[in-house]
């Protein structure tokens, strides 16, 4: 049999004929696979960069949030006609009215029972009494539902629920939602409620505050696993006089007085901005104002009075209120003081009795307002907006780095060590160890955060507990990190690449098959001569196999050059604009990090040359098998 080197010598001669056809084949196949290679290099680069940026925070953790809805039986449409609750609500209401009447009589005040919200109404369709639609309006309904649940609710055991999965640990995340008031940041050190009250028409000042409020979605005391990766400076909770907090980038930028960069800003300007915001934000203090419902009501009253009096200051017939309140300074989070009280002693006594009456039945409290100092210790990603009109770079950033941290975070480890005076019960409740629990009767739910040991465990848990119907008992979704979504994106990319590879391979087989087939057909006479001078069929197969491999190698070289060139161009074009976005989206600590859109570690890079060689050999086989079965005499006669 012919030796390999001799086979190559003879195969090489075939590459020197039909050069135009050869060049066309290499060009077309090369273009197809070159584009595929470019796509692979770019997607590999993006995934590699995402991995790299992910390591900057919690990107490599697999965390889910499981919302427990308490079962379908607590959905409004199921309890509104629940006879037990309806009957009990009416009973509570009757007792309440009677107690109120007795207390009003004791205090010597008037009480109109019809002003107390009724718990039920008649539903014509059902032909019976049902609970009022706005359950929270009636204390009697709330109490009845609570009693109903207390007897039936079994606490949701997340450990039990996740026991069949490889769970690393259960995490805590307490959404801070004061039970009887509101807690809000003070943009530029001011209470937005007061600032907004001075604004008659939305203007630039109002817009400015809207920018702030859209950057604030709430506050959570979050497990260190979730929060600490974003902490950029050390903090000593034991000697602290403020609460450590991780805020989002946009808010920090705004608070530090930076104007939003125009969309035409260069990559360097964006990077410089990130650097500045990062540096300066570690010295940033943000005040929060807590007001309980009574404090809010008084403040509201004061602001309405102020407006009214301003409006009527020239109206001599206008009668000022008997009690006039002073709106506190907008940067004080202060109490609403009375500046003028012209009420008679009798009127004051009546007011006092009414307050006492409300304290008993409506659980009203004394007004309470607290100005709380927070110290920024890190920045978390801002939510990315995505619309079709944005640039490709925006799209990549928004799609692949969707902000996983919607709330501002207080690291739980620090929070637990903070002095008690920094953790008022009115704001934080009795404990900061519970997960997010809302007891609104209409949609009772609790959220449990779980970290899994592996992506596979997290994915199988999510698949088993995803809820699409709206009537599930539990619903699980990725939380605090986009690692699971990115894994899906990676899977999707791989599926798409497989399809593209399949299609391109199919087209390439046709092109290469046609080209190689023609070459073999053209070489029939030569094959016949080789057979005449002693070549075996296997020798002819070897020659054409090597010819095909050599042709494939040329295609591979062209593919490599074209693919790498295209990927480099895309990287050169997009990397500068995606990098700043990725740095903010991932809150990367290392600002020298580049989001590179070209990567060479995809296994597909090995597959491409193998695929090219394989499909070329496959394309070669049919014409070659037909050719070597022919009688050489026939081919030599065709002169």
């Amino acid at each position, binding site marked *: 049999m012919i030796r390999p080197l001799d086979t190559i010598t*003879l195969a090489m001669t075939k590459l020197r004929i039909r050069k135009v056809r050869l060049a066309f084949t290499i060009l077309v196949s090369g273009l197809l696979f070159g584009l595929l290679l470019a796509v692979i290099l770019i997607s590999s680069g993006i995934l590699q960069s995402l991995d790299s940026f992910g390591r900057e925070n919690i990107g490599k953790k697999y965390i889910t949030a499981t919302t427990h809805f308490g079962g379908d039986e607590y959905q409004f449409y199921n309890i509104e006609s629940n006879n037990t609750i309806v009957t009990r609500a009416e009973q509570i209401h009757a007792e309440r009215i009677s107690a109120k009447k007795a207390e009003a009589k004791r205090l010597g005040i008037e009480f109109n029972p019809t002003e107390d919200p009724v718990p039920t109404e008649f539903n014509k369709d059902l032909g019976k009494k049902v609970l009022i639609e706005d359950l929270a309006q009636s204390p009697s309904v709330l109490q009845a539902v609570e009693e109903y649940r207390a007897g039936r609710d079994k606490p949701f055991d997340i450990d039990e629920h996740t026991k069949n999965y490889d769970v690393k640990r259960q995490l805590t995340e307490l959404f801070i939602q004061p039970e009887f008031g509101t807690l809000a940041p003070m943009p530029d050190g001011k209470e937005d409620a007061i600032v907004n009250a001075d604004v008659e028409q939305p203007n630039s000042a109002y817009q400015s505050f809207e920018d702030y409020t859209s950057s604030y979605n709430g506050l959570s005391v979050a497990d260190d696993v979730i929060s600490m990766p974003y902490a950029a400076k050390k903090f000593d909770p034991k000697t602290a006089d403020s609460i450590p907090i991780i805020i989002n980038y946009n808010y920090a930028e705004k608070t530090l007085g930076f104007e939003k960069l125009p969309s035409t800003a260069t990559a360097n300007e964006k990077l410089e901005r990130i650097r500045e915001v990062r540096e300066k934000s570690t010295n940033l203090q943000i005040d929060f104002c807590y007001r309980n419902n009574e404090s809010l009501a008084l403040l509201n009253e004061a602001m309405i009075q102020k407006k009214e009096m301003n409006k009527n200051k020239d109206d001599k017939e206008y009668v000022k209120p008997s009690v006039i309140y002073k709106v506190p300074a907008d940067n004080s989070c202060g109490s609403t003081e009375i500046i003028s009280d012209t009420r008679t002693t009798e009127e004051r006594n009546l007011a006092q009795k009414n307050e006492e009456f409300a304290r008993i039945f409506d659980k009203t409290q004394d007004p309470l307002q607290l100005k709380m100092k927070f110290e920024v210790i890190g920045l978390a990603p801002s939510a990315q907006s995505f619309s079709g009109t944005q640039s490709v770079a925006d799209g990549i950033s928004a799609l692949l780095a969707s902000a996983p941290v919607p709330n501002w975070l207080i690291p739980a480890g620090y929070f637990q060590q903070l002095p008690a005076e920094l953790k008022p019960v009115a704001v934080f409740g009795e404990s900061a160890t519970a997960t997010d629990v809302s007891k609104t009767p209409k949609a009772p739910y609790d959220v449990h955060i779980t970290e899994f040991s592996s992506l596979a465990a997290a994915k199988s848990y999510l698949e088993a507990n995803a809820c699409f119907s709206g009537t599930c008992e539990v619903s699980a979704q990725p939380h605090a990190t986009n690692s699971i979504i990115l894994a899906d994106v990676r899977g999707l990319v791989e599926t798409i690449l497989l399809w593209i590879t399949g299609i391109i391979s199919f087209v390439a087989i046709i092109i290469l098959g046609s080209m190689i087939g023609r070459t073999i057909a053209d070489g029939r006479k030569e094959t016949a001569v080789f057979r005449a001078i002693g070549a075996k069929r296997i020798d002819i197969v070897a020659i054409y196999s090597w010819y095909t491999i050599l042709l494939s190698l040329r295609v591979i070289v062209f593919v490599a050059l074209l693919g790498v060139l295209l990927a480099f161009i895309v990287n050169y074009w997009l990397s500068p604009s995606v990098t700043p976005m990725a740095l903010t989206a991932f809150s990367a600590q290392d600002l020298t990090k580049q989001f590179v859109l070209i990567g060479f570690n995809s296994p597909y890079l090995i597959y491409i040359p193998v695929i090219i060689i394989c499909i070329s050999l496959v394309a070669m086989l049919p014409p070659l098998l037909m050719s070597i079965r022919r009688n050489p005499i026939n081919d030599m006669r065709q002169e």
Partner: protein
Amino acid sequence: MTQHRRASEDDIAQYLSLFDKPVDAVLAIKEHLETRRSSVKQRIQSPAPDTPVIVSTRDLHRGYKIGKTQVDALRGVSIDIHQGEFVALTGPSGSGKSTLLQSIGGLDKPSSGTILVNGTDIAKLSDSKLSTFRNGTIGFVFQFFYLQPFLTVRQNIEVPGMFAGKTRSDRRLSVEQVAASVGLSERLEHMPSELSGGQMQRVAIARALLNQPKIILADEPTGNLDSANSHNIIELFDKIRQEFGTTIAIVTHDRAIASRVDREISLLDGKLA
């Protein structure tokens, strides 16, 4: 033992047509004289060979179909060719001479009959063994040379050695020898396109000689050459036969060439004439 046949009416008409033009007439007369001289010389110089028979066909038939027509290219041909003999297969187009040559060379399989070459019934050999047989026992020379245009003369001559699996150094030695025999030692590094037709046919002959075959089969080797080069090629075959003892069988239409071989085997309509 020279075999002769009677000229057919067509042959006579074709021959006489040469006398329509004066120049052709002179050439025809010269050729006739040359043939006669050669024939006399042959009869004197080449007695019936007493060497062993190297090629023997018996009742050889070969038929094939062209469209719906059955063509019987060979119809019971039985011949013997002796070792070291230089024979010419002649006959009009379609007489079956090329088919006979290719059958002897193992390129074509007979429909029936036997072909013993060097004692082997090649009709019974497998494709692979036939290839080995062709490579080692037969050297083919074609009318159109069939050289590889992108290989040097040296590489072209080496090709049968490649298929024999010989090492490069072994081939190099053989190439030097056969190139010297055909007078191409100075042209080994040239490309085929740099050679004349005669030189290209010499390269093809050298290629056929590389594996030192017992038989050279040449299918109209001078068909593409002028008379001077044709003469030289026949001289070269004669020289090879003398030098290597190789049996040579050529297919030719050329009467002058046929007259210069040891024996002419004429075919007509697939049979010996």
